[in-house]
């Protein structure tokens, strides 16, 4: 538990991706099997443990600590796991259990043994270790590490390509001893679970309008870039898996899709929510899909109000036949044929767009108003399906961004290279009441889009226009207008303004524009994409 607790403690405070990778790689390098394997499982959400409820932990501490003192402490700290780990009255005694000892004991234990085990460990652990234990047994570490980042750290540490690790990821199980042996150069590469194997996706490069003319329009096929989440569907034998683009298994979140996957193929597509009309599926904006993301299971009510479907882009395997080396045009033909033979109500095909030249495509792109369209995809007709982001065969040509003139309200300092710079900007727009009085309401936060020189200038401005400080945050005079670009605007009851922006970034700093002339909330609300 010692090294694992120290790792979690460091991760909690470490904001930077690179720094997190280094902490993880260092942990994997220094710790033995099977500890590091269980740590990897805990970080990637693949650890199967009898979970304890927070109430159990609370009962344990209340039996040991004066109720009044506990109440004051909990009020002060605000988090149960942390309060318990700090207030636990015993100074650590005896040998610190290893992570494997904790995990394996919990896996063997019956439900009634769990409280006694936890209490015994709490007596042997120090503060950080108790916190790690409580996080581990109550589920959800929340240390800002995704499964993908943990796998990337494996690649960083071992020097093995990430794509290879992802290919075999779903064939290996905790504590991943075989995986670590291969990564450490001491063993064979574990066999991938061929029936449910994730194949790294082919990704596109962004392209700008001006670059298009360098490409031969006849060599490319165009289709809409749908605004959902990219998925890979793998089905065959008894296995059915729905993977996100980073290779995470999201099957449990969309059971209705998995249920419909009674076929033997590997497909690439966009997962969307929407409704069925006479013309087939009508996708809803991304915001609607978001209601269903980051849930471990499908919620019945949401499955009915926000049903999911997959708009297919590509076919990688048909039966046992690997089509990845075939050109796009051939795979497309196979996809259409496959869909004809396996018509399912949960799947349709992303249509190809007819166009003679780039001029025509520009017009079509400009006319597309649907919220569920993010832009266009351009794919070479002769391109094989290649893992990763290869420059040339596929491009994404996003829709022109929306822009809003907003007023800078708060600035927060960054981390690492940016730790002495105010680099995270919260901005707002005017809301007018019936009497015409205006107040600013925050509509978003942006921390990129500017050059280093612009950042330095913004930082100077923030320092000389601060009106109040709250820790690392400064409130500033409402006097600087930022032109904010975003991909789309969505209705959001969780925000005071009622709207939320997607990918907001600082497009231009409007040193010239008076704050009073910034946009109104009404203008921004009009940009909200209508729910279909």
């Amino acid at each position: 538990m010692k090294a694992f607790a120290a790792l979690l403690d460091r991760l909690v405070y470490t904001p930077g991706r690179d720094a997190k990778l280094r902490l993880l790689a260092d942990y994997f390098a220094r710790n033995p099997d099977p500890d590091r394997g269980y740590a990897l499982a805990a970080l990637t959400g693949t650890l199967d443990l009898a979970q304890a409820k927070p109430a159990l932990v609370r009962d344990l501490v209340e039996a040991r600590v004066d109720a009044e003192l506990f109440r004051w402490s909990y009020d002060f700290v605000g988090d149960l796991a942390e309060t318990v780990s700090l207030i636990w009255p015993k100074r650590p005694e005896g040998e610190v259990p290893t992570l494997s000892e904790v995990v394996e004991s919990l896996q063997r234990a019956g439900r009634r043994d769990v409280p006694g085990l936890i209490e015994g460990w709490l007596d042997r652990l120090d503060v950080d270790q108790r916190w790690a234990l409580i996080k581990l047994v109550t589920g959800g570490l929340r240390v800002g590490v995704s499964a993908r980042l943990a796998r990337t750290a494996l690649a960083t540490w071992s020097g093995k390509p990430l794509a290879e690790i992802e290919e075999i990821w779903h064939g290996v199980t905790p504590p991943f001893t075989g995986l670590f042996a291969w990564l450490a150069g001491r063993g064979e590469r574990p066999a991938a679970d061929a029936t449910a194997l994730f194949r790294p996706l082919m990704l596109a490069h962004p392209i700008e309008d001006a670059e298009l003319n360098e490409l031969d329009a006849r060599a490319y096929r165009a289709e809409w870039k749908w605004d959902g989440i990219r998925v890979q569907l793998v089905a065959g034998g008894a296995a059915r898996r729905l993977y996100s683009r980073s290779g995470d298994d999201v099957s449990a979140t969309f059971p209705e899709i998995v249920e419909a996957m009674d076929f033997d193929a590997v497909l690439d597509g966009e997962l969307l929510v929407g409704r069925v009309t006479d013309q087939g599926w009508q996708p809803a904006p991304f915001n609607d899909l978001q209601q269903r993301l980051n849930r471990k299971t499908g919620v019945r009510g949401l499955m009915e109000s926000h049903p999911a479907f997959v708009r297919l882009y590509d076919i990688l395997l048909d039966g046992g036949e690997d089509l990845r080396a075939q050109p796009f045009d051939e795979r497309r033909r196979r996809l259409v044929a496959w869909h004809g033979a396996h018509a399912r109500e949960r799947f349709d095909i992303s249509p190809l767009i007819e166009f003679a030249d780039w001029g025509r495509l520009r017009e079509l792109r400009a006319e597309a108003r649907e919220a569920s369209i993010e832009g266009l995809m351009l794919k070479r007709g002769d391109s094989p399906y290649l893992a990763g982001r290869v420059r040339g065969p596929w491009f994404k040509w996003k829709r022109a961004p929306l822009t809003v003139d907003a007023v800078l309200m708060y600035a927060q300092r960054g981390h690492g290279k940016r730790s002495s710079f105010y680099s995270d900007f919260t901005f707002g727009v005017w809301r007018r009441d019936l009497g015409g009085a205006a107040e600013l309401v925050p509509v978003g936060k942006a921390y990129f889009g500017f050059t280093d020189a612009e950042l330095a200038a913004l930082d100077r401005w923030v320092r000389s226009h601060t009106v109040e400080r709250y820790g690392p945050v400064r409130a500033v005079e409402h006097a600087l207008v930022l032109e904010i670009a975003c991909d789309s605007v969505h209705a959001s009851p969780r925000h005071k303004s009622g709207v939320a922006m997607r990918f907001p970034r600082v497009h231009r700093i409007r040193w010239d524009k008076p704050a009073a002339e910034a946009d109104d909330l009404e203008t921004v609300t009009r940009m909200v994409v209508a729910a279909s």
Partner: protein
Amino acid sequence: MSDPARGGHWIRPTPTGLYVEPGDFYIDPGRPVGRAVISHGHSDHARSGHDHVLATRETLAIMAGRHGQDCAGAMQAVAYGESLVIGGVTLRLAPAGHILGSAQIVLEHAGQRIVVSGDYKRRPDPTCPPFEAVPCDVFITEATFGLPVFRHPPDRDEIAKLLATAALFPERAMLVGVYALGKCQRVIALLRQAGYDKPIFLHGQLGAMCDVYRRCGVELGELRPVIGMIKEGLAGAIVLAPPGAAAERWARRLPEPLVAQASGWMRVKQRAKQSGVELPLVISDHADWDELLQTIDEIEAPEIWVTHGREEALVHAAKARGRKARALALVGYDEEGS
């Protein structure tokens, strides 16, 4: 204010500070007075402008270093253990273990002994002599960390964390936020104890107090100002600066600073995160909860008064131990240097 039925009716809290009536002096007064006895050099306890100040030699050196030689009308140095009588009150200073020169004030009058702890801690500190437990009738204690969630880990673990992080990020500077008096020198001394013998770099505001410590005989090893260093020269270096300097433009001379802070408040994750700290170091110059209780147990005073901090929990715990206890609610002592 004072209740003759209780102990210590000759000492009472006032808005200016604790007032010792028969001796006509204040302890750590918050504004200029005729006669002041100062427990230690932190600015909320040691203000300038008193006519007469009595304190340890080290505390007087610190006051002169911060406020100038003329910060008081007259200064009287008293060594630990030396007794003197002021208006019928016998006074003696005992080590408090808080920072260099910090003292508890032991007062005897009318057959009764009262000890004012000032700020204190119980764990060893290479920069000052350890706290001395003095049996007494009334113990007047601080309670900065008077909640059972504050239990400081061993110093060496925190220093080891700093050194391990420095080794893992050799291209970055470790920027450690420390209070200029006490914490700064203690962190340096702890690093030296851990065998760290490279130069330690200082923000300009930290040099003066380090010089005072050295003149008082505390070894700090090689210290260098940050100013004048090229950025690359600070890769992997440990740099000490006042808390908050990380947000200042000053910090841009450091290569990708990794912001640490040494304070007892770093114990609570949310508090540490809110202050934008990437590496919290729980190193405190105040007694933690266990030390507060340990002290109450050792001193065996039947009556406990709590000056400042989270009084209610400590009063509650002292009562549960069968002591009379009350909160004095003294104002004006902030949490700097905690």
